């Protein structure tokens, strides 16, 4: 079985927020909720990098561990999902999550938390695949249609990738090899190497192995 993961390449992300918009549109998430966000470090100064963050679908998910009603489950594809019929909106998953993925619409009285909403890896919820009920609660179920999450599919620079961890690792490895090729060939710093193809090499460094 596949083990689905996201991978965001900080050397490629241009902070266009296309992934955020794609997610919001595809899943019709509630007001005030953004399942994905792009965080920029060193904004406006040399060394600026951006990363797109959402639920990382942890193998040992802290949200699932602390949930008082045990509403989380991991699918066969390694996607961490939750059941909104069980969720009570206590906020514990939000405290435990390292990435700030769980979001809460201000549904209750005095803007208290409603039922939690988070990235589903475009895999819906426990309801029947692509049913109206599933879409209303969790948004799109692209995985059931054999498609990958729209955020990654929309990414114009292919900074954000989604898919099986082994495949992503291989892509990442090749990218690193190409960047390293530039460093080895020209002796330029890594940061500069990322922006140009290794012109001194014939073909891609990763294809020379």
């Amino acid at each position: 079985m596949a083990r689905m993961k996201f991978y965001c390449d900080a050397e490629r992300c241009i902070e266009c927020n296309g992934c955020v918009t794609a997610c919001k549109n595809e899943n019709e998430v509630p007001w005030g909720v953004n399942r994905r966000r792009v965080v920029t470090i060193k904004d406006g100064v040399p060394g600026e990098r951006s990363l797109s963050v959402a639920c990382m679908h942890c193998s040992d998910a802290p949200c699932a561990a602390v949930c008082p009603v045990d509403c989380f489950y991991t699918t066969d594809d390694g996607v961490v999902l939750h059941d909104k019929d069980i969720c009570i909106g206590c906020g514990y998953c939000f405290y435990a999550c390292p990435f700030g993925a769980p979001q809460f619409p201000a549904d209750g009285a005095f803007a208290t938390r409603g039922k939690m909403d988070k990235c589903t890896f475009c895999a819906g919820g426990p309801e029947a695949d692509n049913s109206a009920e599933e879409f209303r609660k969790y948004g799109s179920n692209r995985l059931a249609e054999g498609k990958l999450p729209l955020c990654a599919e929309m990414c114009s620079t292919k900074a954000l990738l989604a898919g099986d961890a082994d495949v992503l690792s291989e892509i990442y490895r090749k990218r690193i090899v190409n960047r390293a090729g530039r460093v080895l060939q020209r002796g330029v710093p890594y940061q500069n190497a990322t922006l140009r193809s290794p012109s001194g090499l014939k073909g891609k460094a990763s294809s020379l192995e």
Partner: protein
Amino acid sequence: MYRPVSRTASSLLLLLVVILAPVPGGGASANNREEGIQVPNPGTDLWREVRKRQQPPLAGVKPPLNGAPGVDLWMEIERSKLSPVGSTQVKSVDSGTLINPFGDEWRRFRMEWLVPYGGYAVAGMFLLVVLFYLIRGRVPIHAGPSDKRLPRYTVYERMIHWFIAAIFLFLALTGLTMLLGRSLLIPLIGAEAFSLLASASKEGHNLFGPLFLLALALIFFRFVRRNIYQRGDLTWLLRGGGLIGSRHVPSNFFNMGEKSMFWMLVLVGGVTAVSGVILVFPVLGQGREIMALSHVAHAITALTMILVIIGHIYIGSVGMEGAIEGMTTGYCDLNWAREHHDWWAERCENNGEVITVEEAFEAEGFTPGAPKHHRPAGETAE
């Protein structure tokens, strides 16, 4: 009135129980984490190679820090753990923080410490109270019930007592449901049914929680003068409130144990209430760390109160003859007052506040002579 010495003693025993108790789940969860599938960092081997081949460094080139890519980025992320240094178009509290490592510490606190030990502590306290009852039995009025009464609590005092009592019991039960339900109730009733219960518990807890702050304030202002420590309280403490030996220790309207419980309730309960307000309104601009810390404070103080109040309920009801009458009827037995609050009883007697059973019943609104209510004193203790 009750003598909270049982609490002091039982707290010690409880501590023993907690220390000796084995921890389930601790080992299991550690195993779970290790079972997480290992994802090899695809860049590691390569960069080791790059660093090897870069020796000696090329002239005029500043080698990347540590030779690894993204070090600067990761140093920034490390820094952003302390305060959100990133910027993002998604405007909400903490949204600029990439990684919040405090969450995992909070997870460990809740899952490996709070849930198991909290559960043991509450169960242990119940067990201790039962054991205490079996060993010591009910504390009787040694001189026997009299036909004289002393006015102890006014209607207003009884009202705010039962007000806070009702709120506290409700909050304790709903809070414990959310704390222990996953371990205890889901295996029994299933996740669906428990979700209904937990959802109702959470809503009720959130709704009535802020009222606890109000009730606490009412209790504080009404009873604070009688709860100031005075000469003689130390003696009471040193003699274990009469638990050591058979003699009674003199005390005023409230004894040292009751005063301590009052201050515990005000201080610890105050922390519980304030941290609860921080948790219940997530729109005040507080971040995850603040909320997780509030949860820690909330859980520890609430459990402390629950343990103490279990002792309070015991000694105020089945644990001592004549103790509950003051809080239900407003009047207490003269002999009970003499035995447990003799300074106060003496003062009342000197002031001529002693009345007969008949007068007490009349003051409560019962018709004098009505046989239904006109039971001999002592049988009304329940």
